[in-house]
């Protein structure tokens, strides 16, 4: 397997396209994410943001173009898909915790069943990450007993237990009550400070200004603008970006 080929790219997308029936969800998307880079993707709904990051771990299959994650080419080889998924963690808008398992079991399932780690070691690992997301005391509870913010933090810990090299966040705070958004964003900022490679689809522009190395604006399946946060917010180049920013920053 050809790992990093000289450059520092963790994720590389080249001319990626994806259709849902006749609807073209992604249109020749090129994107490179370096190791340790934090990328925030924003854009109107239906612009292909979620589809883009879901292609990176094969929750959606891209139809043309090339996706390379940490030197592994994403193709139909199930071994490659499994290898890429092992390196990519994902956090969903609806948390998707396993309701029949306790918080601790949610976190140990992956390490024990996918990695074959022993129970004691997996539990130690899980507690470590539950502490990092500030809810070790909830380990024995079931997801339905937690608030939305707590559930999302468990979901983050569950992903981290697989010690991924990349974390994908698909609108992680969109389903949360306003007072719970901050606790999740705080955890994500702490995670960014550890040097994790992150791609976040979010409309939390405060968060974006704090952590992003690169801002991406998407519309109609295309990357319209990619810039540093400073340039992106103060000096957007395209008219579409200006309009979008004026709409979400006006209030």
């Amino acid at each position, binding site marked *: 397997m050809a790992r990093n080929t000289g450059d520092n790219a963790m994720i590389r997308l080249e001319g990626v396209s994806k259709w849902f029936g006749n609807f073209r969800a992604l249109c020749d998307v090129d994107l490179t994410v370096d190791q340790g880079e934090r990328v925030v993707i924003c854009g109107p709904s239906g612009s292909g943001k979620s589809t883009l990051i879901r292609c990176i*771990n094969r*929750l959606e299959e891209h139809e043309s173009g090339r996706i390379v994650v940490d030197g592994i080419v994403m193709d139909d080889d199930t071994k490659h898909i*499994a290898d890429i*998924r*092992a390196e*990519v*963690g*994902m956090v*969903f808008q*609806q948390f*998707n*915790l*396993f*309701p*029949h398992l306790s918080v601790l079991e949610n976190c140990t*399932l*992956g390490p024990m*069943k*996918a*990695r074959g780690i022993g129970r004691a070691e997996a539990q130690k690992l899980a507690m470590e990450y539950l502490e990092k997301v500030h809810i070790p005391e909830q380990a024995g509870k*079931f997801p*339905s007993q937690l*608030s939305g913010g707590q559930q999302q933090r468990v*979901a983050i810990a*569950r*992903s981290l*237990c*697989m010690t991924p090299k990349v974390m994908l966040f698909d609108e992680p705070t969109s389903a949360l009550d306003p007072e719970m958004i901050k606790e999740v964003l705080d955890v994500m900022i702490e995670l960014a400070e550890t040097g994790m490679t992150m791609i976040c689809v979010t409309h939390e522009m405060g968060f974006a200004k704090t952590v992003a190395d690169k801002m991406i604006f998407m519309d109609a399946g295309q990357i319209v603008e990619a810039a540093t946060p400073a340039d992106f917010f103060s000096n957007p180049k395209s008219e579409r970006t200006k309009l979008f920013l004026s709409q979400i920053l006006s209030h």
Partner: protein
Amino acid sequence: MSAVDATTDGLAAPKRLKRRVAWWKSAWFDVVQFVLLSGLLIWITWRGAASMDYRWQWYRLPRYFYRVIDGELIWGPLINGLFVTLEIAAWGMVLTLIIGLITAILRLSESVGGRVLAKVYLESIRNTPLLVQVSIFYFVLQPILGINNPLWTGILCLAFFEGSFASEIIRAGINSVHRGQWEASTSIGLSKTKTYLYVILPQAIPLMLPPMTGTLINLIKHSAILSFVAVFELTTEARNMIGDTFMSFEVWFVVGPMYLVLTISLSTLVGWLERRVRRHR
């Protein structure tokens, strides 16, 4: 969680009011009605039997359950028949669940051949009478496949029949687990099989239990149809007894409740199982 605590503290639960219940809505009147109705039914039966000069011979019945000869216990035909029915039920349930699971997985699979096979099996079994299927199994498949045991022919036939219903229950159960569970499970690296095993089935099985109990109860009830093809289960033994003794009232009054004991025990067991599985929801 202080916000939640404040609201529950602030609103003390209102004291439960003691309601005056009208006499015709009270529990004891329910019981009286039930006793009266049962009494009426028994009286009608007894009067009907009397008017046709039916001679009740309950005293002859016990020896058809068991006899003690020389200090040795020998089961009578009713108990032997019950054992055969239990055997059919036990093997039938295992095979029903296996056939149902395989068919459901074939129908949910990406293989076109598998889906067509499952669909053809499902539609042909669900849309033909069981009695016709029993006849085909007994008179056609049994000699062709060289099975020389009517009991196993019967068990297979019932399992294939109930398996078609079981597969739809299993498929519906699996489909009712939210798509996000698949995505979360695969994104933490679990394979398809492991996702089924540790994420999907544990959530789907509690949903499948109530309708599946119905199918398994049907299996027990439908086993009576095997009396048609020389399987010596409970109904066959009952019919033979009536042929010998002409005690049709007594025999059917006893055999009916024997089936009831089987089916009600099963649904009670599954009900208990269901409460255990759901404890953490």
